[in-house]
């Protein structure tokens, strides 16, 4: 994006206020520490079910969601802990949700894959690949019909682009000129199926462009690139009131879920990508530019740890929902008619 703005030799981190750069770093570290703790808690069987870790992809949620305004809506996938966290959903409520407790952000009913928060306009937590895309179109349609100036950001993986839902949704958004930011987190694997083994056209922006929408691609391992690309894309969505497709090229360092033995990719490939780790590369850049000291980094890290430990303590102490409460809340208690 906006490569014209980029003066050669000058690190992009210098184009922004230091506070923003530190905030982006902080948010990546928060996600990383939160999820590392989740993995441990999974081993301790405090967290059960499916747990899909975002480790390696933190730059995307941190960079993209930081660019949204509070009025915008977010529709996410089942790998959404980071998105919820950065969006401002309470870490306590997220962790309680992972534990299945009533104080969870979805009353503990959904767990890892179904984080919801009305106050944050966080619409899930959708565990059907591509399932959130048509919903995002509808949210944007409601905004357009009610003349509200907001954007719906819909996150999905590249695997979702093989689903009919993607094609139907982006066609509707383009046809009806709806303010949807399609945020494709291309981590190269749809569970265990590599992009080239699932898509005839592996250039995802080319696929999306066929619907006559503007597209861009960003380095999803670089939080500044993500942030800049997202800011620019959002500006286009707001000014054109039309959808925009933004690809974030990223990589998942951990397995697809806790059940995945990772037979489908070479360890060497994973190690190669880890060299591009979003947190250590970014903190190294900030240090090189004199924007961050090791001491400051350790403070950030400690705060992130403390946040997680508070959340774990909260989740541990929280109560379970009773079957009576849970089973009674399927439809509205008393309906008219």
């Amino acid at each position, binding site marked *: 994006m906006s490569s014209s703005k980029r003066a050669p030799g000058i690190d992009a981190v210098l184009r922004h206020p230091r506070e923003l750069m530190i905030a982006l770093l902080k948010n990546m570290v928060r996600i990383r520490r939160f999820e590392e703790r989740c993995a441990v808690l999974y081993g301790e069987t405090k967290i059960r079910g499916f747990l899909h870790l975002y480790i390696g992809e933190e730059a995307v949620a941190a960079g993209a969601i930081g660019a949204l305004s509070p009025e915008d809506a977010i529709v996410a996938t089942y790998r959404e802990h980071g998105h919820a966290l950065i969006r401002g959903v309470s870490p306590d409520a997220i962790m309680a949700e992972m534990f299945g407790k009533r104080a969870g952000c979805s009353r503990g009913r959904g767990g890892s894959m179904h984080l919801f928060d009305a106050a944050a306009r966080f619409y899930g937590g959708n565990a059907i690949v591509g399932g959130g895309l048509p919903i995002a*179109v509808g949210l944007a349609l409601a905004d357009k019909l009610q003349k509200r100036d907001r954007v719906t950001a819909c996150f999905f993986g590249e695997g979702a682009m093989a689903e009919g839902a993607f094609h139907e949704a982006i*066609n509707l958004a383009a046809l009806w000129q709806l303010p949807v930011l399609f945020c494709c987190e291309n981590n190269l694997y749809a569970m265990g199926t590599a992009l080239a083994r699932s898509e005839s056209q592996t250039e995802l922006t080319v696929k999306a462009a066929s619907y006559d929408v503007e597209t861009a691609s960003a380095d999803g391992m670089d939080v500044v690139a993500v942030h800049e690309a997202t800011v620019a894309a959002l500006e286009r969505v707001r000014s054109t009131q039309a959808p925009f497709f933004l690809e974030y090229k990223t990589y998942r360092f951990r397995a697809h879920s806790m059940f995945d033995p990772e037979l489908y990719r070479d360890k060497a490939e994973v190690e190669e990508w880890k060299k591009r780790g979003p947190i250590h590369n970014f903190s190294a850049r900030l240090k090189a530019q004199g924007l961050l000291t090791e001491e400051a980094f350790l403070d950030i890290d400690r705060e992130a740890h403390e946040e997680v430990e508070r959340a774990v303590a909260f989740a541990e102490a929280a109560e379970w929902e009773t079957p009576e409460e849970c089973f009674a809340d399927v439809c509205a208690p008393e309906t008219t008619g």
Partner: protein
Amino acid sequence: MSASQKITYREAARQALHEALTQDERVFLMGEDVGRYGGTYAVSKGFYDEFGPDRIRDTPLSELGFVGAGVGAALGGMRPVVEVMTVNFSLLALDQIVNAAALMRHMSGGQFNVPLVIRMATGAGRQLAAQHSHSLEGWYAHIAGIKVLAPATIEDARGMLRPALEDPDPVLIFEHALLYNMQGELPVDFSGVDIRHAAVRRTGKDVTLITYGGMLWKALEAAEQLAKDGIECEVIDLRVLRPLDDATIMDSVRRTHRAVIVDEGWRTGSLSAEVTARIVEQAFYDLDAPVARVCSEEVPMPYPKHLEDAALPQPEKIIRAVKGLFGKTDS
């Protein structure tokens, strides 16, 4: 007796939609050919010019996409009425109906309800063959989190939409395609219907016929014939397929001691099976005969008229089933 107007089921459905669009700005109609074309069954004829393309929204052939857009628009504060042309095509939208609309309230811890109405035509009887003749409303009635309505009368075609739109959760309305041309009386001072109760459409003391949708009229026809033979049928129109109104069913069965369920769906795993199970669970000791069922033959719907007729529940089959409960057989 108050004055009434003679209208078709189509006109009744049309009046209901017109009223909703007029009274609530959040209501909009969306679906394939609802606008310029005027609606596949002409229910929304003229609406496009009257309400404009934003509120009478033609969609591409994208059932999954536009039903999901309906879910999203409902979440965003609108009151969408999504028309899926027929139940047959709703299979393309199942993920959004079942995994999104139905589950959202509960899964989100009660934070996000989906006040969405989905209308669709259903049923066979017009020689449209296997892929255009499904009767899957019983299938949808399996899903927790949605309400399923089957208006069989002019009053219900006119009245069910309003409470459906007032409902904070998803409501599916199944309109039997054979009913659109049916004429009937609607009181001029019609004040609405509920979407909670089954209705007794004919009283009788000897046997309860339980049915819904297009089959109501075949059941009533059978009841007329049986009356000539001295068997008085009570006919219950379920109206609401989910949640079922057990009280009305059991109250009748406890008086008549016999039940025959007439369901256009395939027998196996059908709504008729569910109603049977509930009668057995709740009124077993009141029964004087086994519960009987008249359903569609378990065959993909054939095209020729005589085969389609043979595959569907017909008054003669209902009469046979009823007489069987009294130890009588047709000679």
